[in-house]
């Protein structure tokens, strides 16, 4: 239950940060570090549960709600797919340190964009996302990858703190 609350709070904070201070604090122009994606990858790697699946979907849904140009369900689809991909590959990937989460997040970012582009092409056929999208994906993926170790480390600390609290005192 405590763990569940931790991820609810983390998800809430991530969305709040992405929609407010990050754009002001980081001089990155239109780029917003995709903390929600990092959280989604963390859930996929460390929490293979139905709750984590729903959490990933909810993260994507929140991004859709707070992105006016986005179609409802677009990011929810991408995040669900990222979770699934990370979950399926988690048996082969051994993320032994927070630092090694960076490449996983980097590739997850590409999966997310591939999913977004796929839905765009199939359902929406929006023009103007051709060559420029590649540059955006690369920067987006690198930003998320750079921030991933720090966020993984924070989440792991929070998790171990909660687990220590749960252990009986001998």
């Amino acid at each position, binding site marked *: 239950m405590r763990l569940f609350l931790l991820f609810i709070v983390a998800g809430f904070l991530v969305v709040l940060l992405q*929609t*407010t201070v990050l754009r002001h604090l980081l001089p990155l122009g239109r780029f917003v570090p995709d903390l929600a994606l990092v959280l989604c990858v963390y859930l996929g790697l460390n929490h293979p549960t139905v709750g984590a699946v729903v959490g990933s979907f909810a993260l994507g849904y929140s991004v859709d709600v707070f992105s006016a140009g986005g179609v409802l369900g677009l990011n929810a689809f991408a995040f669900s797919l990222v979770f699934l991909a990370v979950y399926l590959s988690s048996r082969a990937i051994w993320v032994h340190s927070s630092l090694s989460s960076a490449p996983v997040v980097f590739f997850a970012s590409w999966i997310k964009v591939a999913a977004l582009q796929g839905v765009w092409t199939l359902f929406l056929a929006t023009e103007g996302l051709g060559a420029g999208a590649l540059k955006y994906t690369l920067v987006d993926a690198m930003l998320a990858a750079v921030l991933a170790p720090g966020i993984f480390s924070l989440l792991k600390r929070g998790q171990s703190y909660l687990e220590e609290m749960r252990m009986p005192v001998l």
Partner: protein
Amino acid sequence: MLSFVRRYQVLVSSFLCVLLSLYLVAPAAKGESRADPIGPILIALIRPFQTGVRAVVSGTKNVYQGYLALIGLSAENDRLRSHIVELEAERNRLLEAEATNKRLRELMDFRTELPAGSITASVIGNSASTWFNSVLLDKGTSHGVNKGMGVVSLMGVVGQVVSATSKNAKVLLITDPHSGVDVLTQQSRARGIVTGSLETGPIMKYVKRSEDLQEGERLVTSGLDGIFPKGLLVGTISKVQKKSFGLFQYVEINLAVDPSRIEEVLVVRGQPAQAQD
């Protein structure tokens, strides 16, 4: 069956979520949008925090600026800056009026003020995604802000309201590739659509090859889209390129407003589209 679901519960639930997402996306293919009962609740939940964070960020920024400059100089700076903004708006109005007079449009009473009923709003949040450029306003339907209304600042066009709840409104910024504003060039009176682009920044689309555009020429709203009043500054032409093929020329623009730095905006009601002269 039940044991299969239990065994593969993560996979099954993931597939269900993927299918649910596609179910949510599907209406967009027809240009429709599905009713979203959860979105407004999420926005309402996060709104106080966004307002609080914005106040803290804004306050911190102000303290920092005040620290850097002497109080008197800072006040003088603010006064001069707002004066520049007023003069810029005035200059744009005069240029537009001059162009209009030259074309003997005697009956036109060019509006120097925004239409009655304009609503002042503050930006309290940004888009959560790099892929969409939007902002969240602190005013909604209960304040008279509705879907389809134009959003402007003193410097020019900012975007368009694409959805509104009772207390908030989402604005698709002019820099977003999905946006579109009907514009006229101030001197040559060429028409086109200004939209965002991921590749180069904002561009003006659908400008005929025969039009003679100049770099530095100003773009103003045409008023024909029924969203923005006529004559609001949108930006200036930064690059014109006529390729060896195609019906249209390629035009890059510099926007008058930097939407990423905007804090206060006016939400305006458009006027019915007028016949093109």
